[in-house]
């Protein structure tokens, strides 16, 4: 695979209620991304949006975003999964040779819709939806119980990872302010409200409004645009079966397959040693561990060892720094890009050269996508 460069990015600062309208947020993100790369709207040839009709409450949710996203009279399309999947479509367009500059954006506003309720609409309407027992909380609870039982991991250990993520978020300038708690302890996490046992509230992300945008370009163009591009050197994606009863919830088959494909393309043989930073989109802290293990960052069941060494897990705080559906995958990519460019400020992992960023969609991370990113010369 030829390298695809990420030449610009922008994150609108997330908020529990940003008081911005969707076109405002998207314009801010797209304009910011173009400015960060020193490019103009006329340079863009394609725009891929990531929005979800149900999260937006609007059919054809990309319809009113065309002018705001710079897509007027440009080749525009929309992916309805996660921002990271939209980036995959952008990679297709850039690698095909037809497009020299692709703008990818993802946005949603959980302050305007009840996230957990709308997610119920993903369920099988012939059975699961009528019973109304499966939702993000119960799915997270069962996944955590399966993981803890199979690998004999204690809830304290998982709480330690939660504390690590929340403390990282507290140092992350792009995190949701309400999610930043620098004085949090393991006891705080264990005593927080039980959403669905054993899942605690402080192991579940806070939902926030936000928008993220990145700009992709082919290798030659990237080197002309910026001195410090970050390269996408590998990508892999996979979808598991929908039925929770048929999956082993303590592992993630789809992430294993996706990671293998991405590593093969990128030429990574030993992720434990070669990956410096891992930005994982897990819907709960336990899922972060399951996905990190499936991505080969540590032995299965041993996710908590990442606190002691190996690739840095979610130095930005991961989803504990705020979860914006549809934009989260792009936020993970942006955080990894910042690390590789040496621009991550207080959360910088020094000497970061290779990173992975993941996105997902579906209950218990049913559909995963993993990117391998490399710094241009940090």
């Amino acid at each position: 695979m030829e390298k695809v460069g990420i030449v610009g990015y922008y994150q609108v600062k997330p908020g529990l209620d940003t008081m911005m309208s969707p076109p405002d947020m998207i314009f801010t993100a797209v304009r910011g991304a173009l400015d960060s790369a020193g490019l103009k709207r006329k340079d863009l040839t394609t725009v891929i949006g990531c929005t979800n009709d149900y999260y937006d409450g609007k059919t054809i949710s990309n319809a009113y975003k065309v002018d705001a996203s710079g897509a007027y009279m440009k080749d525009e399309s929309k992916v309805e999964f996660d921002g990271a999947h939209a980036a995959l479509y952008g990679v297709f367009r850039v690698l095909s040779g037809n497009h020299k500059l692709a703008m990818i954006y993802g946005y949603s506003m959980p302050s305007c819709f009840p996230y957990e309720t709308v997610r119920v609409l993903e369920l099988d309407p012939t059975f699961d939806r009528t019973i109304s027992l499966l939702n993000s909380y119960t799915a997270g609870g069962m996944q955590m119980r399966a993981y803890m039982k199979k690998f004999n991991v204690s809830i304290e250990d998982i709480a330690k990872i939660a504390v690590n993520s929340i403390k990282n978020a507290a140092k992350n300038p792009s995190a949701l302010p309400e999610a930043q708690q620098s004085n949090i302890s393991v006891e705080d996490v264990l005593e927080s409200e039980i959403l669905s046992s054993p899942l605690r509230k402080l192991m579940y992300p806070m939902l926030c409004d936000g928008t993220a945008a990145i700009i992709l370009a082919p290798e030659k163009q990237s080197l002309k645009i910026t001195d410090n591009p970050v390269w996408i050197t590998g990508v892999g994606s996979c979808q598991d079966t929908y039925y929770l009863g048929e999956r082993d919830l303590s592992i993630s088959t789809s992430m294993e397959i996706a990671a293998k494909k991405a590593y093969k393309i990128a030429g990574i043989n030993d992720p434990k040693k070669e990956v410096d930073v891992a930005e994982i989109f897990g819907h709960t802290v336990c899922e972060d561990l399951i996905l990190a293990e499936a991505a080969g960052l540590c032995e299965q069941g041993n996710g908590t060892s990442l606190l002691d060494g190996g690739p840095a897990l979610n130095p930005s705080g991961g989803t504990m720094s705020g979860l914006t559906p549809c934009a989260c995958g792009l936020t993970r990519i942006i955080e990894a890009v910042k690390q590789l460019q040496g621009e991550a400020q207080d959360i910088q992992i020094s000497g970061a050269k290779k990173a992975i960023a993941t996105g997902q969609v579906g209950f218990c991370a049913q559909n995963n996508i993993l990117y391998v990113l490399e710094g241009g010369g940090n």
Partner: protein
Amino acid sequence: MSKVQPAIISCGFSEHASKRSDVNMAELVYEAVENSIQLANIDWKDIDLIINGNMPAFEGANMPELWMGDHIAAKNKPVLRVTTGGTTGGSVTIAGYYAVASGLYDTVLAIGFEQQSCGDTALGLASVAIGEIVIYPDVGYDYGKMASNMSAGAAIGVAAYQAMNYMRRSKATEEDLARVVVQNRRNAAKTWWTHLKMPTITIEDVLDTPYLSYPLRFGMVCPASDGACAILFTTEEKARQIADIPVYVNGVASVANEPAILAPNMEGAGQVDPCEQLGAMKSAELAYGQAGISFPEKEIDYVEVYSPFPNQELMWVERLGLFEENMAPEAYKNGLTAWDGELPVNCSGGVNSTNAIGASAMKDPLRPHCKSWEKLQIKYLKRSIRQWGMDGVAQLI
């Protein structure tokens, strides 16, 4: 130009009907997927990526390919979802093209479907604008005034406005519109999977139906169908081994021109004449450029145009450069666009005869095979609309 040449090796359909009550969504899509895999004669395990699309408001299911995974040959495979409203079928097909053209995936299945009988079509379409228009009564602009001033009345209201403008420009008559419908419905009778098959319909039959919104009559508009369509893409190398006549895709483009009809916060339309269709012309230009076509009226042999309403078919074959401005009704009268004419249009009956919204924009690219053309490079145009049929165009050449 893309580095890898994508080719289409099969096109599978499910039965289209106004109510497919014998299947749930997953099973409906399975029919199309199974059909396309059988026609291509490949092993389902060889499919590398599945791309799916539909208009979510019509089924009440968010991201249905997540639970439909097993039925669409997607277990432990990558899946993408591409949806852009009415143009979804076109967008999914274009996404399939790009997936192969990028070199990352060899064999890609692109699926479009809709089971409109599950939901309320009018409300599904209206929710495009509900969030924007609810504010109006609070500022003294009541719904009645809105309906008469704006092109409300959902898709047909907008199309009627478009039809009026076209008829004023081209002096086309209702009879010309009816002629398009007759051609489409008779063509549809020759294809197994279409919805409205009417082999003996005449212009008088169409004009004998009541008006829905002048000048569009009941007999002229498209049906609401349940159905699915699945297209298999692969690389040129593999296509030569698998298919007798692979169909190479040479140019794709999709251009957004939403502000032409409605900007956010109902800021008003950017264009006064809805027949202008800047989006259509730009995307045709881009796609022709990629495919190396300079004289479309001479070089194109066959056209599939997305026209749920007959005036749109007339308008778009002109915008695509196939006929001179305002000359399309003449061409239809003279039989140029008939099944056996010089430039056949919509031999599958088009969207006028079958409209499962998520799938309609994926017309049958292999249709020309029935006419046994010799050219390997079969060029065809597919035109799709997003939203209420005003803007946003997708082309496939």
